């Protein structure tokens, strides 16, 4: 899977949990899940659980704490896939 493919897969997951007032176009590598995409902590857990299923990886509490932006999430996914 290429970096681009991972990013697209992640975006597909994130868009399910975006509040109505945030558009899919708002998602960039630098987007902060809570402060910019307005995703609450409960939905952030849903994103993590979906990421685990989609990429067949297991995330830990410290991964959740580190996962502030889309870029952080991709780095964590890449680290687990290695």
């Amino acid at each position: 899977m290429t970096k681009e493919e991972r990013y697209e897969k992640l975006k597909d997951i994130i868009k399910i949990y975006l509040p109505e007032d945030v558009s899919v176009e708002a998602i960039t590598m630098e987007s902060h899940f809570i402060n910019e995409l307005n995703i609450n902590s409960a939905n952030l857990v849903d994103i993590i659980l979906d990421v685990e299923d989609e990429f067949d990886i297991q995330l830990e509490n410290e991964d959740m704490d580190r996962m502030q932006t889309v870029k952080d999430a991709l780095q964590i996914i890449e680290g687990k896939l290695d």
Partner: protein
Amino acid sequence: MSPDHILEKLPYARPFLFVDELSKIDDNGIEGTFTFTKTLDFYKGHFKDNPVTPGVILTECCAQIGLVCLGIFLLAKDISNSTTNLQIGMSRSEMEFLLPVFPGEKVTVTSEKRYFRFHKLKCAVKMHNAYGQLVCKGEIAGMIKYGDNV
């Protein structure tokens, strides 16, 4: 953690406490009861001259027993948790209401854990009346942890 200990830790008080007793509890679920006494304040207005327990209150009762009591039990299993300052917030509820609950009725709530990960607890809940009839059912999720913020 014993049922009495869990009840002590509940962050609710009357008139917004909707748990009387916990009859069963383990890692996968919980069962508890509550009696809606006739004097509860909301019966004066829901409805005028025709008191019926509001659906939001039934949902709250399911959440207090099924999510918060179970969550306190599950959190206690992790010794790294400090035991002060419980932070809770309901994040989602999807309920179906099948029968009315009138003043004076005793209900039993059973809750089955779907998952508890990253401080989020999601449960399937059911409420039965004293005749064993299903009153409402659904899924409730919330964030629960000890600490400064949810």
